[in-house]
């Protein structure tokens, strides 16, 4: 009744292969974007923006990155944290060398550095598959973590080994550093994430995305029909690391305000992997859902427990959070291995025939 194709005719090929064929979908997307840009920043307080929404967007971008690699191309990667770190440190070095260039340009540029490093560590992927590749990416993770501590040039020989984010402006308004308000930072991050998601959506729905999915499903067969494996896999690593790098730069410059090597350790990689698993492998909307659940759940627990009146000590909440996340992952894998995205899809399908059951 509300969600029907009836009356929507496609009159050209472009309309036929569009990503959102139903008008209701397009309207829904426009409403969400409108809310995100024009409503949410005005009604949310600083805490919501700073500690919930900005990190949610950053992690969604990182989850999209990992989804491109693991969900669409089938290459398990445990090096996400390190690639994010490469982007963050690259952005830091670029902005210290050329402080007058706009920071957003450097954020995007740092993605290219990350892509180069990612492609380098993706070279073994031609010979190694599955879990073994995960171990190879772990090598990347630990090696890069070591570099972040041991290569003083990366953090400008700062004695403490940590990097601090300098204040940078856009049109005269500070957007990074301690004086930037959560409002401006949120809008900048939102814009970048929306644009990059749009690019990713076009990539995965197009020829390149189909090549990746073919490699995921059975790479030998893909090779037989003419898809060259090494360039495809390297491209997946490169694009995924590009997104990781941008996410890392956003994380440091627009959320934390500083960083040290421990931020990009192996736990960060696992964190993003959980988001992708729970959200759904091979789905962009799944990345958003996964990031929302895995990231916001602990905060909700922490804030909810005292609000409801449970006399839980903060450390107990912390431990409960681990248990609940772990249990949730197992639960989702049992109930719906394809994650929240699949649940969303099923929901939409049910809505299409509602009020009829099928």
């Amino acid at each position, binding site marked *: 009744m509300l969600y029907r194709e009836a009356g929507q005719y496609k009159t050209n090929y472009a309309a036929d292969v569009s990503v959102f064929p139903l008008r209701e979908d397009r309207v829904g997307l426009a409403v969400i974007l409108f809310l995100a840009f024009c409503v949410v920043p005005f009604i949310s307080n600083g805490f919501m923006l700073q500690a919930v929404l900005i990190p949610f967007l950053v992690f969604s971008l990182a989850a999209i990155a990992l989804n491109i690699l693991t969900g669409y191309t089938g290459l*398990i990667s445990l090096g996400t944290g390190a690639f994010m770190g490469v982007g963050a440190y690259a952005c830091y070095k670029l902005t210290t060398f050329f402080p007058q260039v706009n920071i957003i340009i450097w954020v995007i540029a740092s993605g290219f550095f990350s892509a180069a490093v990612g492609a380098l560590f993706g070279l*073994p992927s031609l*010979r*190694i598959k*599955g*879990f*073994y590749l995960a*171990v*190879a990416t*772990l*090598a990347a993770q*630990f*090696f890069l*973590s*070591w570099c972040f*501590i*041991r290569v003083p040039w990366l953090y400008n020989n700062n004695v403490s080994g940590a990097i601090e984010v300098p204040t940078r402006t856009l049109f005269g308004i500070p957007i990074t550093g301690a004086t930037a308000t959560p409002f401006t930072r949120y809008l900048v991050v939102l814009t970048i994430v929306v644009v990059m998601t749009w690019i990713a959506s076009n990539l995965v729905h197009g020829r390149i995305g189909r090549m990746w999915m073919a490699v995921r499903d*059975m790479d*030998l*067969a893909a090779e037989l029909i003419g898809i060259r494996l090494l360039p495809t896999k390297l491209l997946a690593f490169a694009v995924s690391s590009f997104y990781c790098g941008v996410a890392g730069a956003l994380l440091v410059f627009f959320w934390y305000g500083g960083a040290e090597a421990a931020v990009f350790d*192996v736990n960060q990689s*696992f964190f993003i*992997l*959980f988001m992708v*698993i729970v959200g759904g492998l091979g789905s962009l909307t799944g990345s958003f859902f996964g990031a929302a659940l895995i990231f916001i759940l602990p905060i909700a627990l922490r804030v909810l427990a005292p609000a409801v009146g449970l006399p839980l000590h903060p*450390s*107990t909440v*912390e*431990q*409960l*959070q*681990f*248990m*609940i*996340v*772990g*249990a*949730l*992952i*197992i639960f989702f*894998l*049992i109930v719906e*291995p394809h994650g929240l995205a699949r649940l969303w899809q099923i929901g939409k399908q049910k809505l299409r025939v509602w009020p009829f059951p099928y």
Partner: protein
Amino acid sequence: MDLLYKIFVDPFVQMGAAPDLLVQTLWEGLVAGVLYALIALGFVLIFKASGVFNFAQSIMVVFAALTLVGLYALLRQWGVRPTDLAAFLALGLTIGVMFLLAVAVERMVLRPLVNQPDIILFMATFGLTYFLIGLGQLVFGGESKVMIAEELYLPRGSYEIKMLGGFVNFQKIDIAAAIIASIMVATLAIFFQKTRIGRALRAVADSHKAALSVGISLEQIWIVVWFAAGIVALATGIMWGARSEVSFALEIIALKALPVLILGGFTSIPGAIVGGLIIGIGEKIGEFYWGPLLGSGIESWLAYVIALLFLLYRPQGLFGERIIERI
């Protein structure tokens, strides 16, 4: 030129100059290798029997050790006077807890996921890891604990042997660890070759469907295998806890078992041991002689790079089965 000298000649000169340090480094590598091998053994057991790559093995090590120490403290609190009685009683109870854990895992994680692709099961063990971390911290507290090594009659102290111009220090607990590891490997090997359940385990590893068709109960086999892995985890936890202490930092070290598995092959018990020794010794020698060139601290990634190089030339590991891909 100077750099080439530093990389290729100087470390060997150093090795010759202080042979007692070389022996000490080799021994340290051996000990670390044995401990990595024990963790890898747990992985191999479960992978052989169920095809599940149990990422939670490392947290099972910590969890087993914590349970042992916690139960010991509890028993003492309840008034069990003689320390060795309390210690061995706690040991028995911990074995029971590991059995219950195996049953719980089989029931709640493995059975519902019975036909899913391997990657789903792998991710499920991730979830199990996090769950056990939270549960362990909740029940036992986050601070590190001292392993009850003395009460379990594990030797303390060391042998110092004067040799080769200096001295080499052999910790008695390390020797005990090596002996216990060998006994365990031997027991497991006999178990797999000679007993009925061992044969059933090997059958399940070959093919689940064929094993089912000859009447082997998959559920029972999985409980046995996870229980065995739990025992191995307990032994590892005791050894490693006695060497340093029982804390959640152990969980990250256990990630090192992955390169060991790569080297040895995922399905081979002798492979786990050999791989562990190679990685342990390689890591320590690399760190000690070549580490200062690169700024030291290279231990954190050296094992993975060794494994990576190995993977490029022999993906199935030293003893693993050749991977045959079928279309």
